[in-house]
């Protein structure tokens, strides 16, 4: 088994659609009288993963662990501090403005809050059609209109919704409008930034099913960000778990849920409620809060809260290594188990 960090997923490596390499985003913290930079929030601290075409990678973690920042850095909605984002063989990070604009046709994003993500002063037609205007995707007025209607119907809305304003819709419908907007450019990759977290459970299922249908229909690749493990389990092929700006474990979805190899993943999984009255699982309670990302703990970032903490965890940062085929984790426990 290889432990080279450069190429964590040999099986997928032939032609990954997206390849994120050592992505770092530090937000400077300014303080004091003259606004000197007194430190930095290490929101994303060396994240690497690959995404094969047609795949869904779930990205989970607590609030503030940097999962949304990772997603936005890939689209360069936030400028990464360092690292590489390879999309179809091109490094997105170095691209100029025009090339980046063109790339918007391949990468899109769906937002968490369906209320904040739609311009309240634009009609649904104008919102969905904006990309068509920006990229000159339709030639005539009729084509433009037909395309918008087509998009609306694709996401389960009606043609006569076109002239209405976002506030006339429910949360689930608004999220569908956001999805239609993202689909307008026929993208290859969609970053779903907690697309169902703000919705009712019944609506969540509808939207997730819609996303799955669309994936099949348009051969989409998803980076699915969420903090809800049960949602991610349903839709993802593989799942990556983030803690304090780093990926601590990444594995095929089934495997991650059955045999987690990182204590943090175990703790997260133990917190997922079982939909069966009377049945209880042993909760692993994490004590304390997520440490301040301005000043992360030494060694393994997770050691102050880890139920299985050892002496070396406090000083030595665990390597991110493969524990079995396609299953990677960053924990010293995996060393003592005789795995390399």
């Amino acid at each position: 088994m290889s432990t080279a960090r450069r190429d964590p997923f040999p099986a997928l490596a032939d032609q990954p659609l997206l390849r994120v390499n050592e992505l770092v985003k530090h937000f400077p913290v300014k303080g004091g009288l003259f606004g000197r930079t007194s430190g930095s929030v290490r929101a994303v601290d060396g994240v690497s993963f690959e995404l094969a075409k047609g795949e869904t990678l779930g990205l989970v973690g607590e609030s503030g662990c940097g999962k949304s920042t990772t997603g936005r850095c890939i689209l360069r909605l936030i400028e990464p501090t360092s690292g590489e984002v390879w999309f179809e063989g091109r490094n997105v990070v170095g691209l100029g403005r025009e090339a980046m604009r063109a790339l918007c046709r391949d990468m899109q994003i769906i937002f968490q809050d369906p209320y904040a993500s739609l311009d309240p002063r634009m009609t649904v037609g104008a919102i969905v059609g904006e990309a068509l205007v920006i990229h000159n995707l339709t030639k005539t007025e009729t084509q433009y209109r037909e395309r918008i209607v087509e998009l609306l119907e694709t996401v389960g809305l009606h043609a006569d919704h076109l002239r209405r304003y976002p506030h006339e819709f429910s949360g689930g419908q608004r999220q569908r409008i956001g999805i239609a907007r993202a689909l307008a450019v026929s993208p290859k990759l969609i970053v779903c930034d907690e697309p169902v977290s703000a919705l009712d459970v019944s609506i969540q299922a509808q939207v997730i099913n819609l996303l799955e249908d669309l994936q099949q229909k348009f051969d989409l690749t998803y980076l699915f960000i969420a903090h809800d493990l049960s949602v991610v389990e349903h839709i993802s092929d593989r799942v990556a778990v983030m803690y304090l700006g780093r990926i601590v474990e990444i594995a095929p979805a089934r495997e991650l849920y059955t045999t987690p190899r990182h204590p943090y993943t175990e703790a997260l999984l133990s917190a997922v409620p079982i939909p069966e009255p009377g049945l209880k699982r042993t909760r692993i309670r994490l004590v304390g809060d997520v440490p301040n990302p301005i000043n992360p703990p030494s060694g393994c970032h997770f050691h102050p809260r880890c139920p299985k903490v050892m002496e070396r965890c406090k000083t030595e940062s665990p390597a991110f290594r493969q524990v079995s085929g396609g299953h990677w984790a960053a924990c010293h426990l995996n060393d003592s188990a005789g795995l390399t």
Partner: protein
Amino acid sequence: MVAPVRRAATVSLTQDIWRRFKRHRLALFGAVILLVIIAGVAIGPWLWTVPINEIDFNARLKPPSWQHPFGTDDLGQDLFSRMLYGGRISIAVGLAAMTIAIVVGTIIGAIAGMSRGLVDTFLMWLTDLFLSLPQLPLLLLIIYLFRDSLKKIVGAETGVFIMIVVVIGGFRWMPVARLVRAQFLSLREKEFVEAARALGASRLRQVARHILPNALGPVIVAGTIDVAAAIIAESTLSFLGLGFPPDIPTWGRVLFDAKDYLDTSPYWALFPGTLIFLTVLSINYIGDGLRDALDPRRVL
């Protein structure tokens, strides 16, 4: 909440705004009043042909009558025709100064709000500087410096008009700039702007299509207040002898002329005062109505 009305497919955005504006009673009322006033000052002087400067000492300080609907002043000049004529200038000054204040304020606020960093710091420093300047002495200085040269170029009345409008507008853009900047700072981080960015919208498009339309509500209201302030500022200048020449009866001028006769001829002050008040109030209501009509979230 009223259930959303399904609109006919042919309704355009402007029609929609007009439909929503009409539901705003006070705004419609204000619009009617303002139209009447504007029509009055625009065509009035042709219909009411009494000259504005005909001095008649036999008719000094006469209260309103059929011959002089608004009464006469201390020189026996007909106040009604003076009001009609002066209203043109007062309203024009108010609207033009407001336009300048809003345009300058919006541009500076928008640039500051979008750029951050040094440009933002500099522009806000400039705004604070303008806010803290002693305005009246500066106005005097500017007018003394430029009045004569402007008069030579464009003629006495236009010259004074341009100067007064620029000076008043130029000292009233700061609140607008701060307002716009604050709106921009919060709006630019909104997810729908981020979505536009993700779609590849240029900066200009983000501002013009998403940020500015959402920032404009408070600006419109601030603008309508500026009209009032400009009309009053013009009268201050006239009072100091720095505005229009004393023989041009702007509303502010007439009001100030009337102040010495408040106890004997209150109507002299009452008419220009009421007209300023009505104009300002109706513009304010129109602003309110516009703000609401432009916001599709409001159920009207």
